[in-house]
């Protein structure tokens, strides 16, 4: 159980961090760069001292400003994998892994280290230096070095940002596999990439400009972001200013410019100005009519080709929307450019936010 609630002021930046996590598994801390993600981890680890507040881990107070408690990092028993791994360049892989358990008997130390090397599949590399390893191998050594101490909390600070994208997926899997098999405490993973957060984490915490915006199951975070910024950070690209006109059959009826559509009613809202959000990949587009609720004609304005998907920008009753479609479905759409296509807005995928 991790319970965090503190304020840290640094130059012009103020970080208010407030969340708790009692599940095992991975909690992703998501936010754009400079939003205070890493600083949050560093405060929890004790590398920076918050100005006010408290940090509790498994019933122990690590920091409490009123009681003047501030446990030094070396006594917090927290594992930390740095963005650049921070392996000691002058020590071999073996000595790096062994660094944190020097107080143990030599024989036990040797056994534990060799066991760790086996777990990270680097047996035979004990006499190599970090500079002789690949990025993924270095990362595994960094993980082994901290897991050997059986930390109560594991912090991963942008662990994949230093890796080439083509090997990233492979290494993500490996790393998570090692963590799942050898560690059952709480894991916090800092990332600025929603895809990565979604793939690796069970729960997601969104931070923006030093403030905690939302914490919850990853599915809930994607399905119903708490506000506009949270929606943007999680990758939503379509927003409209709408007016709530009324409700009918468990749907809200909303109007954006000349477009009137329905949104599944998931919570109580009073009529007035709202913001509707809809993810580009939740929209459906086709030459034929869907014969479903919320289907409207639209006109293609532009297309942006990605590697695996294409983003089509359309105008639908004076509303500009981005639609992401798998690439193989696009050729049949592309020859109809500038012609009318049909656009479907799934009523259960639209979320409404107070403006």
């Amino acid at each position, binding site marked *: 159980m991790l319970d965090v609630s503190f304020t840290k002021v640094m130059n012009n930046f103020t970080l208010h961090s407030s969340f708790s996590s009692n599940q095992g598994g991975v909690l992703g801390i998501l936010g754009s760069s400079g939003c205070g993600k890493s600083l949050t981890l*560093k405060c929890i*680890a*004790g*590398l920076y001292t918050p100005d006010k507040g408290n940090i509790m881990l498994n019933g122990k107070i690590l920091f409490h400003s009123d009681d003047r408690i501030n446990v*030094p*990092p*070396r*006594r*917090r028993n*927290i*594992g*930390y994998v*740095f963005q*650049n791994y*921070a392996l*000691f*360049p*002058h*020590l071999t892989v073996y000595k790096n892994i062994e*660094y*944190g358990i*020097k*107080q143990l008997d030599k024989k036990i130390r040797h056994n534990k280290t060799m066991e760790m090397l086996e777990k990270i599949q680097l047996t035979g590399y004990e006499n190599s230096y970090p*500079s002789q390893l690949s990025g993924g191998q270095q990362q595994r050594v960094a993980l082994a*070095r*901290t897991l050997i*101490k059986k930390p109560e909390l594991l912090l991963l600070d942008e662990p994949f940002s230093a890796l080439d994208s083509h090997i990233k997926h492979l290494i993500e899997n490996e790393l998570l596999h090692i963590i799942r098999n050898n560690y059952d405490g709480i894991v916090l993973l800092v990332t600025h990439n929603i895809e990565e957060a979604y793939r690796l984490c069970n729960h997601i915490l969104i931070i923006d400009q030093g403030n905690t915006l939302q914490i919850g199951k990853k599915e809930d975070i994607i399905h119903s972001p708490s506000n506009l910024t949270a929606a943007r950070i999680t990758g939503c690209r379509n927003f409209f200013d709408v007016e709530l006109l009324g409700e009918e059959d468990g749907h809200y009826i909303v109007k954006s410019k000349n477009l009137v559509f329905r949104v599944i009613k998931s919570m109580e809202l009073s009529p007035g100005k709202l913001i509707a959000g809809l993810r580009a990949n939740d929209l459906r587009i086709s030459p034929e009519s869907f014969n479903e609720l919320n289907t409207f004609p639209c006109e293609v304005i532009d297309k942006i080709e990605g590697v695996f998907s294409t983003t089509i920008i359309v105008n639908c009753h004076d509303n500009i929307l981005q639609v992401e479609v798998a690439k193989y479905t696009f050729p049949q759409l592309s020859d109809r450019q500038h012609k009318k296509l049909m656009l479907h807005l799934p009523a259960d995928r639209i979320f409404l936010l107070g403006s």
Partner: protein
Amino acid sequence: MVSSYLMNTVMDNVNLFPLFLSFRVAVTATLISIMLGLPLAYFLSRQQSKLSDFIDTLTNLPVVLPPTVLGYYLLVMLGRQSWVGKFLEEQFNIMIVFTPTGAIIAAMVVSIPYLIKASKTALLEVNEDYLNAARLLGRSELNIFFTVMIPIAWRGIISGITMSFARALGDFGTTLMVAGSIPDKTLTMPIAIYDALQAGDKDMVNLLVLVMTSVSIIVLFLINRLEGKMKKG
């Protein structure tokens, strides 16, 4: 030919005392510099305050001050009339001025800035993440200093120590002011070269100059090699 000629002259009539004294003074001064300078360099590399700025400036002062001025300050501070001088003489019967101890102190004061500066730079370059990683792995600050900082920064530190040794070995002005040039007591090599030249003792001058030049070249060579390796990582 040259070396055998030199050897013969050494055997015959050259007094080697200045050579040995200089090395003794330089080695002792360097050892004290390491003990005082390294912790100070560590402090300066980790602290950013008005106090550390002030100390930083103070440690660099001997580089810019004329040796005679520095020597004068030392005389004022450590002389028999001074508080420190009186205390040492009365309590421990130690005299500093016009003794080898004075030469050591003079050599240390002029050479320690080089050690501090180089070590500070080397320690500053140690990535904070290494230290944080070591902290989170349960090590104390003192332990981290010896197991992480020194091993990573050693090339820069050694280069500073070498530079400082060379400077201590070659000091003339400050040593002359504080320790004087008493033959067979406080006469160090650089002063002996001057004396020998005044006395027209060419053999002595040649030998001492050769020794000083060789030491300087070796020191420069060592520093260059270390710095080359540092850049390669």
